[in-house]
């Protein structure tokens, strides 16, 4: 295999690995820009992966699975909102709590329902989002350089992958070109001003969280019924936190979020590829370095060594209307 083929195969797997990050980071984008910290992204992803796998297994319909995934993630989002908006509870604590609830519930319910130690049943092909071959992929495969890239990286992904990339400009448009987006960003910076303008801070933040749940639902669904064909214990395996890191790394902006997720996905794919191989000059690099790299990069960024990451000003502070 020459270097180009290796590159194509790593890129292909980088894309596949970055999709759940992309959905989740965009999900976090909406809640954090509205001033609600969301540590619970991991839990939302896990819960929706479980719900999607269950429903897809029972109905054999991938869309029903997607619906269940989204519904579950929105439910978790609303719980987060009930705790942190309505009851002015600590957003971090609420996120941690929801992560625990999701981690526990998925195993407890999964074991009780499927008797396979937390695994759900194998989802039938009709219940999955399978790979789509884009038109012309087979025709251009022989064209040098562009051909393999198009056929193996751009084409041959499942529908959710393409939706993920569509969500990037869509998120940008919603955040920067709609009234809802303007108000959402304002409520994350200065909720008092938004309140003075006669707009309900509570309702606005709840809507932001619903969007968050909607996007996180896609991420979970992708994990269980697009990337694999069943739910497995602790399937999200920290991806929610990497997505959070990507969100921060991208300085809370939609297009950079995409590049950050691709970068982190690439690191992951590269680590898989490097397992047991050695680099010229350096020798064998421990895979753990690649696993830690997204977090190290994010810390370096947060330290202000690569530009400044400035979080939304009102993030993490419950809004109290003056009386």
């Amino acid at each position, binding site marked *: 295999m020459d270097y180009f083929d290796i590159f194509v195969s790593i890129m292909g797997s980088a894309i596949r690995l970055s999709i759940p990050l992309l959905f989740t980071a965009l999900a976090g984008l909406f809640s954090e820009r509205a001033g609600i910290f969301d*540590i619970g992204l991991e839990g939302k992803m896990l819960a929706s992966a479980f719900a999607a796998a269950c429903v897809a297994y029972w109905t054999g319909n991938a869309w029903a699975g997607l619906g269940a995934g989204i519904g579950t993630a929105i439910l978790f989002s609303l719980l987060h909102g009930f705790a942190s908006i309505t009851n002015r509870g600590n957003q971090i*604590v609420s996120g*941690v709590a929801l992560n625990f*609830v999701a*981690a*526990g519930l998925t195993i407890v319910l999964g074991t009780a329902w499927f008797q396979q130690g937390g695994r759900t049943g194998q989802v039938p092909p009709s219940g999955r989002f399978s790979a789509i071959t884009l038109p012309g992929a087979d025709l251009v495969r022989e064209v040098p350089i562009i051909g393999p890239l198009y056929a193996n990286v751009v084409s041959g992904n499942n529908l959710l992958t393409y939706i993920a990339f569509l969500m990037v400009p869509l998120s940008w448009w919603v955040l920067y070109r709609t009234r809802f987006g303007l108000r959402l960003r304002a409520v994350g910076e200065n909720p008092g001003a938004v309140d003075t303008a006669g707009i309900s801070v509570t309702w606005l933040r709840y809507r932001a969280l619903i969007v968050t749940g909607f996007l996180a639902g896609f991420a979970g669904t992708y994990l269980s019924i697009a990337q694999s064909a069943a739910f497995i214990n602790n399937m999200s395996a920290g991806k929610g936190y990497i997505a959070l890191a990507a969100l921060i790394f991208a300085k809370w902006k939609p297009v950079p979020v995409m590049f950050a997720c691709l970068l982190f996905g690439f690191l992951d794919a590269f680590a898989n590829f490097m397992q047991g191989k050695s680099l010229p000059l350096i020798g064998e690099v421990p895979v*753990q370095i690649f696993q830690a790299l997204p977090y190290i990069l994010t810390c370096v960024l*947060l330290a202000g060594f690569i530009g400044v990451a400035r979080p939304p000003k009102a993030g993490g502070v419950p809004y109290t209307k003056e009386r």
Partner: protein
Amino acid sequence: MNTASVPLPAWINYGVIPLLNLLLAFFFSGLVVWAIGENPFDALQLLLIGALGRGEGIGFTLFYTTSFIFTGLSVAVAIHAGLFNIGSEGQAYLGGLGAALVALALDRYVPWYVTMPFAVIGAALFGAACAAVPAWLQAKRGSHVVITTIMFNFITSSLMNYLLVRVLIVPGKMAPESRTFLPGGQLQKLDWLISMFGGKLGAAPLNFSFLIALVMCFLVWVLIWRTKLGYEMRTLGISPTAASYAGIPYAKTVMITMLISGGLAGMMALNPVMGASARLQIEFVGGAGFVGIAVSLMGRNHPAGIVLSALLFGILYQGGAELSFDMPNITRDMIVVIQGMVILFAGALEYMLRPAIVRAYQKIGGK
């Protein structure tokens, strides 16, 4: 009417409200048990018998309690200074390295009580080291400590993974763990404590670090409420601007607080590493760092409360393990659900019932 500013007596704030929140958490956990077709009351009974029924059960319960006291204290110290340290998990993990290095170096030469003080220092130093970078980033660069400590949980996990798989592993063995410590690197089991009450410890790994944990509770109480540093930390926690006016150095206080917090988390490693398995194992912390958040919240960040809530979680852990033997339909992960519910109701939703209670209080005797 706005009820947030109405003062309530301490017995309601620290007694009634946490208790009601706890009941709610158990009610919803019970619903889950009921939903998978088991009787919640039978489950509760089995859980309590499993945790407190015999000497061995009590030994296991107190073993888990020990870990949770350390991580609970770690979270609480940081919270008093207004810092949310959710890196206790990683700090405890790295603390295990400190304890293990001391044990590996000394266990051939000296008895356990000589190794112990060095191990305590080693664990605390390594735990503090893990908290040092997030602390510095918060103090000097203003990066949010919550985010950096999350990142450090993962960085530590990768580092420890590497060390255990490549460096500390016993040559020729498959399991990524260090060699077993000789008795000189193991903490004493507390058989005598349990037999004082007429029980038998059996196989339970309750060990000397339980007593260290209790001493740390006292020291944390002294630190927070009886020293200048503790006063400065609390001032900073309540109002950073007031602290700055009073001439309390922000960066220094943040650094010291986080180092203490990390050190306490690191000491948690003594319990599983030197007290129970007598070797450094992969992922030995097993979520105790996150449980510390719940423990601290439930215990209202006070050492006495932390002991009680650590005991509660110890009972849940041990009882939950026993429960999964008796009711195979309920897996051990039911504990995780209960934990989540407790954090949700006692932590995030702690103010949910307050308005109703204020109204009830005013109606009955107040005004």
